[in-house]
């Protein structure tokens, strides 16, 4: 798709009202998850007295910093459940929101570089199929058919021994996704309030009552956290400790190139993920920086490693120039799965721990989290992702299928 085919936007997508002194539901964080949650609360549950409070600008956090990879080929039943629910929503989202999001189901290849990788990948393909998720195992030559620029020579340090392939996976234009949800939520009466930082959470007798913000106190029947990298900071305001660590995660794009890369290629082993954006940039992501940090910037050696890996896999990129690099702050959980559900504080809900991979979940988690908030109990698809699992030991250990990957 060329640039002149990109859709035009209306002048204004949402109003910027002054916050009221009280709402039924206050959502902390105006990223994709906060906006999708507001949208489904209004649409599926008829709750429209909602404020989404964002300390910066809508989608200025990880929502428009990610590499936009969408897939549902996770290993465990619980993960397949929520990510596949999300993928199904992605498939109808443009029509549902009445807004272009450029969802492109160009497929994703997850490469295997060792016998261990091969065995785990084949196991995941089988698990996916049992869960009704489309998945295939491809040998090196078949990988080359799907993506001709991948180097499948056996003479490299980490040769491509094959890949899992999910044809329904793909990418979407992340800022349009946020704007689409924002516009549709605002049209149903949701107040989207930017430049309003939550600085405190009032809890009385074990129940949440209000949030303190840079724009004053706002009373709330329910408070829903959607603060991604800052989950620990906002959780602490209510005395809730969360099992997550905040890390920088970087990405980069090249200059615009002719279409050369028809799908999405990910490699956990050599740590690089590549797709080509609609406009033509190569979009690349890597692993997190090792240390915890709230700085939206990481170290240069991570970029060097990711470029080295990309070059070995795609020798054709040798002359591409890096146009810009940036970072986000992601909250990583011990089992590489999110935490979505209730907290020890009544009417305070948490959505965090999506780490490096929560963009793909945007509609799915918005849907389930809205149900959780509206009913005061988890939707069946997010019940397993409770905070209690760290005490009961019922972890959803997705390291093999998620780890640093998106």
């Amino acid at each position, binding site marked *: 798709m060329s640039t002149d085919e990109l859709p035009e936007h209306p002048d204004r997508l949402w109003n910027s009202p002054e916050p009221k002194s009280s709402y039924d539901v206050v959502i902390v964080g105006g990223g994709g998850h906060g906006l999708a949650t507001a949208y489904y609360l209004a649409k599926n549950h008829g709750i429209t007295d909602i404020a989404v409070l964002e300390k910066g600008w809508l989608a200025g956090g990880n929502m428009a910093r990610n590499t936009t990879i969408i897939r549902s080929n996770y290993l465990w039943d619980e993960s397949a459940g929520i990510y596949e629910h999300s993928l199904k929503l992605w498939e109808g989202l443009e029509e549902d929101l009445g807004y272009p999001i450029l969802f492109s189901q160009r497929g994703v290849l997850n490469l295997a570089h060792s016998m261990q990788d091969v065995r785990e990948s084949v196991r995941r393909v089988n698990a996916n199929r049992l869960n009704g998720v489309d998945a295939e195992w491809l040998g090196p030559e078949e990988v080359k058919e799907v993506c001709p620029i991948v180097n499948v020579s056996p003479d490299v340090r980490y040769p491509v021994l094959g890949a899992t392939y999910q044809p329904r996976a793909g990418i979407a234009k992340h800022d349009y996704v946020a704007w689409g949800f924002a516009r549709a939520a605002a049209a149903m009466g949701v107040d989207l309030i930017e430049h309003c930082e939550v600085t405190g959470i009032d809890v009385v007798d074990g129940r949440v009552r209000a949030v303190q913000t840079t724009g004053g106190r706002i009373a709330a029947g329910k408070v829903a956290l959607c603060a991604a990298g800052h989950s620990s900071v906002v959780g602490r305001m209510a005395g809730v400790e969360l*099992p997550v660590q905040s890390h920088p995660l970087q990405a980069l794009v090249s200059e615009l190139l002719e279409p050369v890369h028809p799908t999405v290629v990910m490699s956990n082993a050599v740590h690089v993920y590549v797709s080509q954006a609609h406009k033509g940039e190569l979009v690349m992501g890597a692993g997190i920086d*090792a*240390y915890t940090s709230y700085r939206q910037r990481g170290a240069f050696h991570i970029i060097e490693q990711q470029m080295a890996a990309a070059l070995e896999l795609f020798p054709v990129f040798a002359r591409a120039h890096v146009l810009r690099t940036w970072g986000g702050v992601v909250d990583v959980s011990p089992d590489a799965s999110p935490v979505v559900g209730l907290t020890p504080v009544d009417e305070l809900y948490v959505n965090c721990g999506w780490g490096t991979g929560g963009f793909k979940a945007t509609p799915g988690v918005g849907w389930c989290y809205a149900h959780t908030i509206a009913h005061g109990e988890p939707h069946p698809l997010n019940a397993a992702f409770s905070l209690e699992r760290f*005490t009961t030991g019922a972890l959803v250990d997705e390291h093999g299928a998620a780890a640093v990957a998106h």
Partner: protein
Amino acid sequence: MLLIPCPWCGPRDEAEFHYGGQAHVAYPDDPAALSDTEWARYLFFRDNPKGPFAERWNHTAACRRWFNVVRDTATNEIHAVYRTGETRPVSA
């Protein structure tokens, strides 16, 4: 990239080090006495402050020794470096 002052080797690039997470997390004195909630806290919960944080680093590419660093996670500024077994400097 962080410039980390190893207490033995002096300031070196972050790429020479391995990160070890929060410092001063002691193994439980009496493991059998812990409740499930206490085990959960010991295993899965670490401080994640936006501000000064005491953490461990190993100088893997040189002296291979562990030591502690107080770093501000909001700015990445390093306030103090001290050897394992020493107490965290009060001012940091």
